[in-house]
């Protein structure tokens, strides 16, 4: 025990100074004493944030360079959007798919949605008019279908985490309705992929409703309570 004769307090420490007035404390160090609070170890700057920064930096530079080339040598088309979209997608895969510790259903749902948006953009902007529509006709419903299968498979294999994944499964199911609605408006011209995606979504939904009715009710209650 040490003493500060200015503040008139006993201080339990082997440190040199009084925490109140920063004057040297009186008394000797007790070699057997372990400090009441651990020593400060400066934050180990983790590798991860640095990796993230580098990836972000490369992404931004690449996008800027592509845009600059595209605009200086203008040929009437914004072709740089294709590589920029791809770069952004790769960035998302690394950032949210690999580096993030979010649950895998979330990753799948996010990456599928992003892929669909980018491919539809490419389809609309850069495909010859007669070949246009491949993204909305085939890619969109089939990507949703695969995503549905993947999340269901994960749920089926890893029963324990059922509750965490069901929300993303429901989200993808709602998305699966979009192509079939677009069919009705003749925007989607090839029906079978959309129908397959829709059919599978309904099939999985029925299974959940029949065999796990409480879990789906709970999940909806939780996510939408207000």
């Amino acid at each position: 025990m040490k003493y500060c004769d200015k503040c008139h307090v006993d201080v339990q420490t082997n440190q040199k100074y009084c925490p109140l007035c920063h004057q040297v404390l009186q008394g000797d160090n007790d070699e057997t004493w372990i400090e009441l609070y651990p020593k400060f170890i400066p934050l180990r700057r983790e590798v991860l944030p640095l990796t993230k920064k580098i990836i972000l930096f490369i992404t931004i530079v690449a996008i800027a360079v592509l845009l600059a080339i595209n605009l200086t040598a203008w040929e009437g088309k914004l072709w740089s959007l294709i590589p920029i979209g791809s770069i952004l997608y790769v960035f998302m895969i690394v950032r949210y798919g690999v580096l993030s510790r979010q649950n895998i259903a979330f990753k799948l749902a996010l990456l599928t949605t992003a892929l669909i948006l980018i491919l539809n953009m490419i389809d609309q902007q850069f495909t010859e008019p007669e070949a246009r529509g491949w993204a909305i006709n085939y890619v969109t419903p089939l990507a949703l279908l695969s995503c549905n299968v993947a999340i269901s498979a994960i749920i089926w294999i890893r029963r324990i985490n059922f509750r965490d994944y069901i929300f993303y499964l429901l989200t993808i199911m709602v998305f699966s309705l979009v192509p079939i609605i677009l069919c009705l408006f003749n925007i989607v011209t090839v029906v079978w992929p959309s129908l397959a995606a829709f059919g599978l979504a309904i099939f999985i939904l029925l299974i959940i409703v029949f065999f796990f009715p409480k879990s789906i009710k709970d999940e909806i209650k939780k996510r939408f309570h207000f």
Partner: protein
Amino acid sequence: MEHIRIANDWYRLDNAAKIFPAISTKKETNTFRVRVDLVDTIDMALLQQAVNLVLERYPMFKVRLKSGLFWNYLDYNERPFIVLPLPQRVCGSLSPKEHNGYLFQIYYWKKSIVLEMFHSLADGSGAFALIKSLVYEYLLLKGLKITPDNLILTRDSLPTVEEYEDSNLTYYDPHNHKHVPEKRAFLIKGTPISDGNIGLISATIATKDMMDLARANEASVTEYLTALMLYTIYITHIQYREHLKENKKPVKIFVPVNLRKQFPSKSLRNFTNFVKSGMVMNRSDISFDEILAETKKQFAYGLQKSELIRKMSENVSFEKNIFLRATPYFLKKFVLKIGYNMMGLLLNTLSFSNLGKIDFPESMQPHIDKISVGVYSGRFNTVNFGVVTYKDQFSMTFTRSIVETTIEREFFRHFTSKGIHMTLESNYVEEYR
């Protein structure tokens, strides 16, 4: 215990808890700490076992925060809870990555068990219930003969609905929720501690000395210390400098009030309100006695039941506002953040929590040496203060996000100048820059 988990595997956030996820950041962590020092060195493996047992009794704490469309909620957390060695950082943010999503953490160090908790989970009463149960289980595992004496929630009883009810919603009054506008408070400025660390200085005096001091001034301990805090801020920051712009603002101390003493609630979640004591320090001859008289008046007013209900109902009616409720959470977050910065954070100079007297069964007391509490300090409320009484020890803890210790020094010298014996400890954050 399986049946309990299935029956209640998710919880709505209580009225007070709803705000914290929206406003908390790495600097404004909204966490607090409770520390219990035992007589012997902590056995980490036994502590881990004890935590696992205790969490069966506290399903409402075995949760993590998840986001819904309109509100966040607490969902059953299947991941293991792991006790950790105490870090130097006091009341840091509980990142989901390092803490498996749990909103509280148990640390061990030497002879101490430290509980740090995010305010969305519970208030000081809930935290103390948890750590008391933990110490009980821990001492049992050590093979000691102890009894709970109805002071501890043990695994012999089942969790009840009353324990996780939101008592704010039970006791509020829909007709008494008038909003009373407030002025911005004086803020204590200083040099931020590097790395966003928090300095902690804790003093212990004899409970009797504290009681005698308050009694001699015909005040409660909380009133006395609040007045002393106002006086300390006055002499260290304002006196003879009243003309400065910042110093014209009122100095306001935010004092949480445990509503379980006013209402028959058994809730382990947030059920606190507050009293504020404040003063515009516009003269250079304000005396301590003058401040104390004013503080006593403000406490008498603020502690009236109708006033406590008004403040509670104001919060509840805000939460129940149909426009706010129907807004998706990602937008609501901004509303809450702006509202809290304007109406919460900037209206207080300092917060002072008195956790009161902590009782342990007589059979456990010989194994428990000391208890202390602390709250986080942030960007605006740079200094905060927490006190707790255990047997003959009265523990007072300052936490600060600034380097300067002027307030601590003058505050504690007030006691030593009266000849009161004081023991001090510090985490010496300034030595590790």
